[in-house]
């Protein structure tokens, strides 16, 4: 849990607090997870809520996208994937759909590794959208990004993940 909290908030002390708060919440209402599949699922769900609340709290407002760290989001990178016509230089391989449990686990590990390779702010926007399930409009607002920049960052994150996972996938059974 702590590992994931860290991936989201980037401040160890804060991540620890959030995890601790989540665990306390779980312990206070041990019966509340009835109907949820497992205790771990329930813990992670609470942690997500805590992190989402933290993002929505007023003191979060000043945490905005800083251009120095990763450059201007309007500056689209990843262009080297394409030729002048905007077609893929190299054929995009087909991924094996991970149907078996072990394949899903393998793929999740690859995805986590690749997430760590993304620039921190890009990863945060991606996690807010895809892990926490924030709407893009809310992410833009919280981070003071324009809708266009938000779109670009998410696109860049997804393409970065896709490329990284393809590269890592050789040898782990993701690529046929």
């Amino acid at each position, binding site marked *: 849990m702590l590992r994931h909290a860290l991936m989201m908030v980037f401040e160890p002390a804060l991540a620890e607090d959030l995890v601790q708060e989540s665990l306390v919440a779980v312990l206070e209402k041990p019966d509340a997870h009835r109907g949820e599949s497992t205790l771990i699922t329930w813990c992670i769900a609470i942690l997500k809520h805590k992190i989402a609340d933290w993002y929505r709290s007023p003191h979060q407002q000043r945490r905005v996208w800083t251009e120095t760290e990763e450059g201007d989001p309007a500056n689209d990178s990843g262009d080297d994937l394409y030729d002048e016509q*905007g*077609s893929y230089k190299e054929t995009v391989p087909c991924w094996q759909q991970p149907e078996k449990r072990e394949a899903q686990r393998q793929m*999740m590990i690859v995805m986590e590794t690749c997430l760590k390779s993304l620039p921190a702010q890009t990863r945060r926007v991606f996690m807010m959208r895809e892990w926490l399930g924030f709407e893009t409009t809310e992410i833009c607002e919280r981070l003071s990004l324009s809708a266009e920049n938000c779109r670009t960052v998410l*696109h860049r994150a*997804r393409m970065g993940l896709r490329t990284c996972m*393809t590269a890592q996938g050789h040898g782990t059974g993701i690529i046929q």
Partner: protein
Amino acid sequence: MNILYSCKRAAELLSQSLDEPLDVVDSLRLRMHLSMCGDCRNVEEQLNLIHKMSPNLGLLDLCEEQQTDSPTNGEALS
């Protein structure tokens, strides 16, 4: 292929479509591009899979750990 968007533009729209509905023209042109372009269909599938997997980040390996204690509790992600 250019009239129907480049692969680069198609990828942007594929990503955008995971966050918000595309307008009719974009959506139509994207569908037409995809129908003709295997690369972009693969990209579409990969982006969809990433989208589908993301909410479960953090669950899988934890479930595995838990499974060693109690094998019956491992169905969270199935």
